């Protein structure tokens, strides 16, 4: 019983305050290389929220920044689904207070993090944090770990969202990276751009922009492919009841 109480209070601490952890910089082999032929991406040290932002967290932000209320926000910045699941324009209601906030646009998620002096995590940061199992920083080649993540995709639609921060901490102490919700990233607007569109020769649009020509490594990593497909289908004003977010901050200068 004491153990159970201790566990519950630990979860509450995660869900109610800003709790983040430092993650060391590293060279990381991403599924989206940062440049043509680049094997690794250099990731600078950063801090990442332990848990997804909850409805209660987001409600505090909305109360302090009424321009982000449902009904007040400009259609440029959030679509009609924005916070539609809340009981009122400033109150999520008891049932969802501790659940991860969803139905928020990229603009709204960005504004929340900025109000905290933070930002959304970059894709590569998220991907590196999410590559960790509970025991090792990069478990991506572990078939058992991959299988566990894939199982989420076949079960998550049927269940209700768990509380933010209630899932098991990984190697870095970060929770909710898998099996809870999709997450906005800072550079979602770069996920459909090919690494080198200039290689394409003909003098029309595609030569210059190459959108839709995302080049991907490790195509057998289905869980990540699905996440990238989801993110690249979302415009910055879109909301979805399965898309939440967390924040990150820089540590020192970028290399």
């Amino acid at each position: 019983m004491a153990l159970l109480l201790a566990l519950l209070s630990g979860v509450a601490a995660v869900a109610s305050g800003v709790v983040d952890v430092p993650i060391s910089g590293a060279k990381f082999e991403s599924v989206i290389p940062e440049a043509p032929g680049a094997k690794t991406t250099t990731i600078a040290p950063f801090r990442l929220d332990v848990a997804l932002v909850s409805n209660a967290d987001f409600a505090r932000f909305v109360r302090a920044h009424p321009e982000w209320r449902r009904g007040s926000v400009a259609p440029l910045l959030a679509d009609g689904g924005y916070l539609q699941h809340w009981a009122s324009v400033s109150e999520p209601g008891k049932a969802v207070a501790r659940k991860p906030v969803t139905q928020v646009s990229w603009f709204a998620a960005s504004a929340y993090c900025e109000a905290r002096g933070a930002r959304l995590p970059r894709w590569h940061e998220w991907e590196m944090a999410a590559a960790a199992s509970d025991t090792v920083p990069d478990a991506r080649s572990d078939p058992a770990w991959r299988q566990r993540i894939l199982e989420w995709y076949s079960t998550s639609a049927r269940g209700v969202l768990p509380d933010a921060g209630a899932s098991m901490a990984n190697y870095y102490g970060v929770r909710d990276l898998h099996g809870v919700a999709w997450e906005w990233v800072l550079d979602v607007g770069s996920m459909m751009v090919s690494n080198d569109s200039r290689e394409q020769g003909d003098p029309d649009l595609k030569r210059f922009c190459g959108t839709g020509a995302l080049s991907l490594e490790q195509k057998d990593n289905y869980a990540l492919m699905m996440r990238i497909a989801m993110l690249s289908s979302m415009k910055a004003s879109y909301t979805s009841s399965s898309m939440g977010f967390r924040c990150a901050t820089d540590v020192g200068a970028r290399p």
Partner: protein
Amino acid sequence: MKALLISVLLLTGQGAWAQSSASAPAPSLYDLHERLVDQDGASVGLDVYRGHRVLVTMFYSSCQATCPLIIDTLRAVERKLDAPQRDGLRVLLISFDPERDTPKALREVAESRHIDTRRWKLIHADEAAVRRIAAALDIQYRRLPSGEFNHATVISALGTGGQMVERSAVLGHADEALLRALGNP
């Protein structure tokens, strides 16, 4: 990728919220409040040309291939308009590159390309503002480690209140869709 996306939507049981119907007014770019700097060092907002019809696009000046062509394309659109329409039109060229496209560098571009800065502005924005503006204009871009940018080239036509009424990915000649959007009051 499309098949994969469909499976994602099926698996999660969620799509994005249905987008507003065709009859709803187009969102206004001017609902994004950014502090920007023009080629003369003046502090401006995105709505600096409120009241005019505006063409807005994003570029970076060290780009050798696209950027001259973007300016040529904007000029091609202008040439197709009749004189009163052309006089009323304004153009915003917003740089992806806060590091190299300082107001001074943009001033040099304006001079070397003989841009009439009474009607066109070249805009410097910081990294966060660039990200938000590109998101609002739905322009995909990516900074490469070399300092270059890969980016979609999109020219958007704005109504007098900033409504994003048309967008075009056509380069090299005037897109009829843009002309229609600029011609009809």
